């Protein structure tokens, strides 16, 4: 059975803390996603997302604070604006925009994090593997960050 790989970028103040809360509440969810903690969701750039897909991710998830709650005043709005562009560019590159998701999850929303993870994993499972890494494997050497 296909087991998706999901790259999750979580803001330190809200969604990462929400994921921690899911843990302290012992909620269970699909283990397909692995989290990378950033200070703010606005730290994430298109190249991080593309890189994740090239490294074999089947889906990329960004979690940030709810609008108005950003620790850095308006970082999440920047993320929101960028994510619209991200989704468009992904489509242009032949990657379904359904493989990318942005969610606002607060430190109090452990349950929402669990639901988002399960839901997104199911969605990716339905889409099937992306295999971008295999498609572009021959070009790996050219990639400067190797």
């Amino acid at each position: 059975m296909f087991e998706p790989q999901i790259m999750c970028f979580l803001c330190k103040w809200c969604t990462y803390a929400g994921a921690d809360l899911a843990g302290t509440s012992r909620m269970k969810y699909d283990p397909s996603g692995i989290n990378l903690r950033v200070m703010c969701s606005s730290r994430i750039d298109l190249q991080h997302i593309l890189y994740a897909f090239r490294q074999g991710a089947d889906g990329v998830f960004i979690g940030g604070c709810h609008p108005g709650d950003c620790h850095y005043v308006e970082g999440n709005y920047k993320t929101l604006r960028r994510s619209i562009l991200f989704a468009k560019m992904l489509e242009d590159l032949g990657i379904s925009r359904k493989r990318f998701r942005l969610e606002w999850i607060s430190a109090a929303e452990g349950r929402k994090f669990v639901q988002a993870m399960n839901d997104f994993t199911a969605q990716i499972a339905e889409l099937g593997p992306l295999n971008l890494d295999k498609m572009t494997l021959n070009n790996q050497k050219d990639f400067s960050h190797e």
Partner: protein
Amino acid sequence: MNGNGKKKRIGVFVCHCGVNIAGVVDVERVAKALEGYSGVSFSTHYIYMCSEPGQNMILETIREEKLDSIIVAACSPTLHEKTFQSVIELAGLNPYQVEIANIREQDSWVHSDKEKATLKAIKIVKSMVEKVLQNESLEPIRVGVTRRALVIGAGISGIQSALDIADHGYEVLLVEKNPSIGGHMIQLSETFPTLDCSQCIMTPKMVEASRHPNIRILTYHEVESISGYVGNFKVKIRKKPRFVDPDKCTMCADCEDVCPQIVSDEFNMGLSFRKAIYLPFPQAVPGTYTLDIENCLGLLPIRCGKCKEVCEPDAINYDDQETVFEEEVGAVVVSTGYDLYDLNHLGEFGGEKYEDVINGLEFERILSASGPTGGEVRRPSDGKVPKNVVFIQCCGSRDPENHNPYCSKICCMYTSKHAMLYKHHVPDGNATVFYIDVRTGGKNFEEFYQRTIDEDQVLYVRGKVSKVYKEGDKIIVWGVDTLTGRKIEMEADLVVLAMSMVQTDGVNELLKKLRISSDANGWLSEAHPKLRPVESLNAGFYLAGCAHGPKDIPETVSQASAAVAKVGDLFAQEQLLHEPTVVPVDEDLCSGCGICVTICPYSARELDKEKGVVKVNEVLCEGCGACAAACPSGAAQQRNQTDDQIFSMVRAILRG
């Protein structure tokens, strides 16, 4: 690689956390999997890493294995990151050389498939190894503190703030745009729920402020701009020309007597007149006349010049100029107060058409012993004693559709006070209050309200008034008594509107420049609504009084003192330490496009036009990294979270 190009020696310590981790994750396998992974020269596991034996083991291993950084694979970094930072500091390492791999909250506790959880743990730990491999050793950024505060606005909140800061032993600049300090509180007659005379309790505070050696009062001054950062602000202050030297003025009133220009008196809410050269009120601080240039006939002695002629101490100087000067402060208390919602917004009440339809502050002046009627309740139009007074609450408040959505909080109590005081002045008069809800949440407030009903027999009618108009010399009020289900039309001699409180005109423009955010209603936003209620999100700015939202006097005074406690925290520090994980600029890569400048919410970045590159004020940078994501050339890299670090971590996570 570390800074010297030498491969790092990394130690990996996997915690069992009893069975919390080990019950699901095969910790031994994790430790084994990390052996020999890039840069890892030591890897082990232990039952409780955070315990004293666990900490000692880490300490000894660092020494024995000559490690220069470590990974602790355990619980969430929010729990023990600090703990392990102290451990490695003891071993002589830089605290930025430890990273926590969260394999409990985000792995063992949320998954039950042991195989999958173990594989996930390995990937998480590897990703942290990749990060620490490229971590720089950092020192906190240190800055000095100017132990001197600026207080903007000298009403009760500003005066209280200034006095408290001064009593802490720090210098204060108290800036007030009006000719005297005192704000709205000095205009009030008596205060609820104790009925203290406002002037009696306010005047001593004003005098105290004026005499305090640590307070410099700057009335008739306005703050132009503030630059810099917490602990180190530069403030531009504009002095408006007063044309009277406060040191020479003896308040003899000779100038006022001869001044031919009569204008409406702001202190009395336009209910009386003053001259163009005037003392705002007898207890004004500073005790000096001010020449109001907008209403003066002209400073040329040819046109008038009468005041200068009669001024014996020669205090009047027609050549006084507006000046702008700069001061340095470390903290700013914003206590700019409130305005009342403009009556013109209420066309259905006639706007400002009817002289005898007034707002609460006007009624305060009418009630005040020092007011335009000498403390007798007389109505503005003809000076008659009103026998029927209608008080209308929630004028512009609690009305999201047409006016302001919020409750103005103090009107229930002051209306109750108004009705009570009116009845004390005119015992045979009728006081009727139209209300929607009566909110008396404060110490002794409910008792006060009930006294108004029990003892002073004020009639409370539950319903919102829809129309107020004049017919002959009577004012007609259209209300409703929702308790009996009757529409009510009644005659009144005087109508007092409890107008909504609103942000002071112009304050938001100033604060926008200071990057202090405000909410949808214009009130200043606190850093956290529960836990940081007196701080602004912008470090070094503190909030006091109604600029932050409607408040009564006790609450304002409490907030002012609380804000000052926070100022004290700041001033008590030798140096301010700032997180060094900021986003500097690699000048060789920067193309000077300025995108990061516009994206930074803290104004930490600016374009150096000469060099064509961006300069970063690291003290202002809060390290969100939004600029690093936006930088097209890679010149903006966040310390210890560079793009290369993120790429390596992503690779470790996805490729194991």
